[in-house]
């Protein structure tokens, strides 16, 4: 379908959710998870100022580089790994079709 990509989100219990994601709605991964009522809080509203949308990237997709704000936030968050990103900083676009992510544990 046009302007729709498929994204897999693994929740904290290990269950996989296959989501249809619109690429023409200016949405990000945090918002996508919220719209499917997955347990992502997105407390700060998408300004990279909390880490409640912290997720691990499981697929090999090339993502935009982290901004200073995102780097700083991940530096303070817990359960951070090499493939950690903030969902709110990953904007949905056609190239991300097939992206697979896992929700990080909630900490602090």
């Amino acid at each position: 379908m046009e302007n729709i990509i498929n994204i897999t989100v693994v929740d904290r219990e290990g269950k996989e959710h296959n989501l249809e994601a619109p690429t023409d709605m200016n949405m990000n991964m945090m918002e996508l998870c919220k719209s499917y009522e997955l347990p992502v809080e997105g407390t700060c509203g998408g300004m990279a100022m909390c880490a409640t949308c912290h997720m691990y990237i499981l697929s090999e997709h090339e993502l935009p580089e982290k901004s200073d704000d995102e780097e700083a936030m991940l530096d303070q968050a817990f359960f951070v790994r090499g493939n950690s990103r903030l969902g709110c900083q990953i904007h949905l676009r056609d190239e991300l079709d097939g992206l697979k992510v896992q929700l990080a544990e909630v900490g602090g």
Partner: protein
Amino acid sequence: MIETDIIIIGAGPCGLFTVFEAGLLKLRCHLIDALPQAGGQLTEIYPKKPIYDIPGFPEVLAGDLITHLMKQAEPFKPGFTLGERCESFEKTDDGKFIVKTSKGTLHKAPVVAIAGGLGCFEPRKPPINNIADFEDKGIEYIVRDPNFYKGKKVVISGGGDSALDWSIFLANGVAEEVTLIHRSKSFRGHPDSVQKVLDMSASGKIKLLTDAEVIGVSGNGVLKTLQVDRQSDGPGVIETDHWLPLFGLSPKLGPLADWGLNIDKNSIEVNTFDYSTNIPGIYAIGDINIYPGKLKLILCGFHEATLMVQSAFKRIYPDKNYVLKYTTVNGVTGF
């Protein structure tokens, strides 16, 4: 005791606009905020970010919006208790509320409006099961008095400015020994501070452990040892008197969560008729409330504040009739 008509908890945009709308009804307000200045997130976190969805302002900087709201509220001479967090409330025999802050300041009013936004910003705590057992018994999340660490062994965790600055300060003749533990090799703090820490590490004044993380705490009533995981050589232990995990702040509902209000998803449930909570006389407006269809937008908070003060007026003056007056007809008459 500070007495007023409406105690507003939270001096963000929504709380400030409440002062204006209440003032039109001749109700006086007093604002309490944990931050040292008014404006909430807008001044504390993103004063230079433009906002595009305030009606009538195609674009306005968050900091400027607060300046305008302060000016708009000014004729009604609001009181402020800043830098103090609301801790508890009690009801008096005459149906009023007494709200107490972290510094013990008392406020009395017939109506409380909670406009607390995301809540209070509190230190981010590492996810270690028994960490609470040692809070203030060796583990502190903020440095209140540096002299407290005189002659002590101190471990600091974190890679930002506060972790770097306190490591430098405490290692300069205050603490007996300072160890800085950081999860990666790179530090996010100010480059000058990073260089200073590296220099002090080279000269032996600071023990620096990078690619390392504290994963456990133990002791006998007071903190004695930290379990540390290092990428290079695995787990180890460090004996210490104090551990300062300095991982920044994150918003929490805080003491309001224990006020007996109905809470859903970290937000306070309200009736959309007048944004009243389950406790008569206590209202919740703005980002802190939740109801079906809720949108966390400043403009929605303004609407909520406006309807809320009508209900507050009826509660304070049950026998007075009130008719809506337009500011274009009567202007604004302050106190």
